[in-house]
Every structure is written in structure tokens, then in C-alpha cells.
């Protein structure tokens, strides 16, 4: 508070001569104008590649468009979302099943990735021989295209010739091969496992950049005071790292909410792993129902938007209250 009141004082004293105020206003205006000039190309590109498809999808969700007749679609209002005769997206149990699957997947996979990614980042932040090499090697799963790694894992998890079952049986953990991607109980865990394998490096990298920007004086002070390393981690590293973690988590959470390729390759349209994106694609492409599928896509967009806004707001509130205490 002290610093902000000082700022107000200085501003009040400097604004005394009216002539300088007028000229500073003109300067501000021209600055704002040039800022807009610089912004316009980016806004135009955004409107073209993000705004237009989004608005078109929302528009199509109010029509009965089909894949081979998007042009002569009729406006049918909110019927694709809900209507009394045949339901609509909001009364389809399969939709709510896929919403639940997506949220479950996001919660579990992002939590696991956070814990493992944090551990990995702490490890990679230590000085040891071959660190550069290891940092590069860790990124390999992240660099492989998802479709390729999903197909690769699909074969490794195969119940008849998969290497995972073979290894587990050789070691003696299981007596019969497990059909990882087929059973309704194991399929979701198989998907989570592959996703964790793939995206933990991304999480680790984001946290590692945060770690490297931490001020060293806190650690020196802790060292002088002889604080236990575990306590240093909880009381110094983690609070200081929080902004970096918040950013990493929101990146991953947004990614996880729209997951499609991994699940589609591993388990196709199976209802036990169907996510919102898989549901929307099935309606749009398999069933040719562009109107209904767009309604599902719009719902997906709304859910992601609400969760993002909630996360950012709640995250900020927390940060603010901690800053005061």
C-alpha cells in the first residue's frame, strides 16, 4: 500500500501545469493509436483462424445442417441442445458420460503429470555430469507426434503380442495377459498412462524454467540458518514456484480437456473412454449431423471457457490473500 500512495502523490504533483497535461494526453493518444496499429494484423489473423470458425460452429449448432448439405440448413433454434421430442445434447446420457470421462481424465492425468513433472524438474535443476544430454533426452516423448506414439503404445499394450504383458508376465506380476485397451476398467488407465508418459516432459520443462528464475538469496539465507532441505522445499521453493506451476497446469488442463487423438487411436469410439471431442467428432463425421455435432462442440467450448475463467479467478484470489498475510 505504501508504494501505491507514493505513486499517487508523485502523479498529483507532476500534473500541476495544464499545458504539459494537454501535451501528455496527445502523446498518450498517439501511443494508443500506434499500439492499435500494431495490434490490428494479429487481431485480424486471430479473427480469421479462431473467431470465424468458432462463430460458424456456434451458428451451425442452431441449424439442422448435415455433412453433405451445410448450405441449405434450416434454423431450428435451441433444438439441438434441448427439445421435448427427442432430447438433444443436454439430455443424451452419452454426452454426460463423455463430459465425466473428460473431467476425470483431466483431473487424474494433470495431477500425475504435475507430481512427476515437478520431481523431474527438481532433478534436472541439480548440477551433475551429463545434465544437458538428459534434458534433451527427456523431451523425446514430447517430440513424437501423438498419433505415432499412440499407435506404438497400442501395439505395446496388445493382449496377444504386446511387450508390456510379456514383461509383466516374465517378472511374475501377472499370470495372464491383460487386455489393456479393451477392458472398460483398464482402458481409461491405459490412456492416462500413455498421456502421462507423453506430456510429463512438457510439464517438467515449464517448471524447470520457473526453477531457474528463483532468487538464490532465499536459499543462501536458509542455508545459513540451517533449515532442513525438506522445509526449504515446502516453505521457499514451492511458494516461489507457484506462478510457474499455475501456468503449466492451465496449459496442460486445456490440452487435456480437448483430448482426441490419443483416445481415438487407442480405443476408437468406445463409450468407456469417450471424451467430449470424440463425441463431437462422431456426431459430425460418423453420423453426418453437423448441427447436432456443432452443438456438442459449442458445449465443449463453453465448458472449457467456464473452467478456464474459474481457474484464473480462483487462482488470483488465492495469490492475493497470500500476498497480504
Amino acid at each position, binding site marked *: 500500500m505504501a508504494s501505491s500512495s507514493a505513486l499517487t502523490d508523485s502523479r498529483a504533483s507532476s500534473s500541476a501545469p495544464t499545458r504539459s497535461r494537454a501535451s501528455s494526453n496527445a502523446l498518450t493518444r498517439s501511443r494508443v493509436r500506434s499500439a492499435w496499429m500494431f495490434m490490428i494484423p494479429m487481431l485480424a489473423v486471430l479473427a480469421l*483462424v*479462431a473467431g470465424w*470458425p468458432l462463430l460458424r460452429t456456434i451458428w451451425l449448432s442452431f441449424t439442422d445442417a*448435415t*455433412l*453433405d448439405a451445410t448450405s441449405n440448413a434450416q434454423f431450428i433454434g435451441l433444438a439441438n441442445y434441448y427439445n421435448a*421430442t*427427442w*432430447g438433444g445434447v443436454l439430455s443424451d446420457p452419452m454426452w454426460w458420460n463423455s463430459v465425466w470421462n473428460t473431467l476425470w481424465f483431466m483431473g487424474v492425468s494433470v495431477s500425475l503429470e504435475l507430481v512427476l513433472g515437478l520431481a523431474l524438474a527438481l532433478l534436472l535443476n541439480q548440477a551433475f555430469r551429463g545434465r544437458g544430454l538428459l534434458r534433451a533426452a527427456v523431451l523425446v516423448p514430447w517430440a513424437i507426434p501423438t498419433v505415432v506414439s499412440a499407435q506404438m503404445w497400442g501395439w505395446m499394450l*496388445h*493382449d*496377444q503380442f504386446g511387450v508390456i504383458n510379456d514383461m509383466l508376465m516374465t517378472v511374475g506380476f501377472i499370470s495372464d*495377459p*491383460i*487386455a489393456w*485397451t*479393451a*477392458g*472398460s476398467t483398464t482402458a481409461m488407465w491405459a490412456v492416462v498412462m500413455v498421456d502421462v508418459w507423453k506430456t510429463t516432459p512438457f510439464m517438467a520443462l515449464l517448471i524447470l524454467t520457473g526453477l531457474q528464475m528463483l532468487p538464490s538469496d532465499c536459499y543462501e539465507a536458509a542455508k545459513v540458518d540451517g533449515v532442513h532441505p525438506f522445509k526449504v522445499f515446502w516453505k521457499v521453493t514451492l511458494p516461489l514456484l507457484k506462478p510457474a506451476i499455475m501456468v503449466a497446469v492451465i496449459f496442460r488442463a486445456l490440452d487435456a480437456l*480437448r483430448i*482426441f487423438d490419443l483416445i481415438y487411436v487407442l*480405443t*476408437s*469410439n*468406445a*463409450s*468407456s473412454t469417450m471424451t467430449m*471431442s470424440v463425441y463431437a*467428432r*462422431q456426431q459430425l*463425421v*460418423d*453420423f*453426418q449431423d453437423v448441427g447436432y455435432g456443432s452443438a456438442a462442440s459449442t458445449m465443449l467450448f463453453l465448458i472449457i471457457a467456464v473452467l478456464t475463467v474459474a481457474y484464473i479467478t480462483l487462482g488470483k484470489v488465492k495469490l492475493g490473500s497470500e500476498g497480504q498475510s
Partner: protein
Amino acid sequence: MQTFKLFTGLTGAVLLATNALSANGASAQEPVEISISCGAVGVELELCQEGADAWAEKTGNTVSLVSTPNSTTERLALYQQLLSAGAKDIDVFQIDIIWPGILGSHFIDLAPYSGGVEDKHFEAIVSTNTIDGELKAMPWFTDAGVLYYRKDLLEQYGHDVPETWAQLTDIARDIKEQERAAGNDGFWGFVFQGRAYEGLTTNALEWLDAYGAGTIVDADGEVTVNNPQAVEALTMVSGWVGDIAPEGVLNYAEEEARGVFQSGNAAFMRNWPYAWSLGNSEDSPIKGKIGVAALPKGGENGQHTGTLGGWNLAVSRYSEHPEEAADLAMYLSSQAEQRRRAIKGAYNPTINALYSDDEVLAANPFFGELHSTFVNAVARPSEVVGRSYNRVSNAFWNATHSVLSGAVGADEALEGLEGSLNRIKRGGW
């Protein structure tokens, strides 16, 4: 998704540009390039290539093959995207027997090119391919689900070929247990197509039909799937996974099932006729040990059955060379070519005369024995439900899949299915 859309958009634009460049002034006399989409299940692609090459040599044109996904469901999705964008990339499409109703509007009428030759083909298939009086596709090969069994193992353990599904379950369990006791750890009784996709619909329709439980939706469009016989059929099936069938069967399509059977790890397999010639090929571990029979009956009062499958050739309305493309389709579906495919690859001809051809019967003895199965195969309700077929089939295979995996009981699943089918119907198909 967004990047994917952008990517397809870009590739589409590039393809259009190349097409525009190559489209300048191609006349009927000049050799043209026709592209055809062929499946790649088993030796399909090889046979298609040979047939196309023969036509190319005869006419002086060139043919390029486009291979497509093995899964029927994914292939349809690909075709829908291509056709609804009016893409000219593929001239001749290999289409499933259930698709004329969904894709018909994108294909030309082949009647002017056929010269009446379609009358020699099975009438039921020609009528499915005829939409509003237009012949949308030429029959290429037909299919019906059949039961493959290991002759040697049935003999070794003293069993007859099963007549009912209950017998099959008992025999499969017995052989599995004895083979495992003999040290064959990875051995299973029965494999089939249990993945949640169109193939499961064909399998499950056979279970229902064997018990006389109808065809999901009847000819008048009424949803009939929730009946006592259907409950009986699915209850029998619900015990299979983990007992006679591996849990992985819940994610098996045709080729995965064939992989297990052909490597000698299953006593029975439900599959299409194409697996016959592959199972008897030189490098097959079970060469000469395979028998083929009609699928079992539901019970004493049930019936032998098989779901009608098969593929047809259609010519895209957006093709730049419809005449040549139609000529290729007619050539590939001709009697001589179907005969060659039957002898070499066990693809069932759609021309009745070929079922009394000595050389065809020598290569595939079961064509004669199972002739009535192929002629009387049970059709999926694609005609009556029309454009909603994909939704109907999807609801049906999801319900069956959940019964197979043990998530819900047969009666509960069928009740739920009845509700969702009526919801899809929205008062009329």
C-alpha cells in the same frame, strides 16, 4: 481439432490446385488416369491391383490405387469427408453393402454402362444398390459370416462341428482347457469381432438372428430389438469373454481375430470367407487344418445364419472421367474377374453361375456347401432406417459391447437400447 481442420483445408487447397493444372483438355481418346479406392484387408489390395493393371493394359489408361483404413467405420468417415467436399481425387469407390442409402447421392447411375449385366448378379444385392431407380453401384463380392474351426483339434478331442451356440461354447471351453493342460498357455476357444465398431453389429446380428430375435428394426421401421429371444442370445454371449474368448476380443476387428486363429491360438473363429485362402496359404501354421461351417443355431428351434456383407463399386459424381471410371467398375465386377478373385482370394462372387464353376469350387469347397447361407444371409436394417443407419448401428454395437464386457446385463442393455433407438428415430426414420 483446430489445427487438423486447418491442415485438411490446406491439403484440400493443394489438391484442388494440382487437379486444376492436370484438368486442361483431357479428351476421351487420350489415356487418362483413374484412381480407385480399395480395401487392404487380407490380400484385397493385391487382387485389386492385379485387376486394375489388367484393365489398364487392355484400355491403355492408367490406374492409381488409394488404400483406405481397414475399419469400415473409419473408411465411411473418410469417404464422407471426400464426397461432401466434392473432391475429385477418387473416381471409383469401393463401398460397403450398407452405404448406398448414405452415400448414394454422390454416385452416378451405372445402368447406362452396364448393358443389363446386373441381372446376372444376386437380385438382393442389386436391389440394395438401386436407389430411386438408379443403379448406384455394381456388386463386386458378397460376404456372409461363417464359422471357422480347427478340424484337427475337433478330431483329437472327439467333438463334432457344433450345431448350436451352446454346443460351441461347451466344445470351445473343453478344447481350451485340454490344450492349456497340454502346455499351450495362450490358447483360446473362440475369437470374433468384438471391438465397438460396425463389425460387432454384424456379429451381434448373427447371434440375434440365430435365436429368431429379428433384425433390430423390422421392415416396417418398428424397433423390435427388446424381445425375450434377444435377451436369451445376449445372455449366452455375456459369459464368453474371459471364459472361451480372450478379453482382448473386445478390441478385435477382422484382422486381429484372424491373427489369433491363424497363429494356431484358437479353436473357433467367426469371420468372413476371405480368411479361408489366407489360412491355407503356404506360410500359415494351420494350413490344411481348417474347416468352414455355417454359424450355429440359437437352439433347437433356432436357425443357421450369417450377416450379409460385401462390397460394391460406385463411380463418383465428381469424377472428371466418368466413362472410363464406369468402364473400370464394370470390368472389375465382370464374371471373369470375379472368378479370378474367387479362386485366388476366396472372395465370394455375386454371380450365381460361378457357384457351379468347377475351378471355383475346387479352390473353395465350402462355397457349394454354404451356398444357401450366402444367398439367404440376413441383411442389416440399412434400407429401412436410411441415413440414420450409422446411429442405429452405433447404439446397437455399444449396447452389445457393454454386455460382452460385463458392464451391464442383457435385459438392461436391451431396454436401454430400445430407448435410444426410439430417440434416434425421432418419430420417423
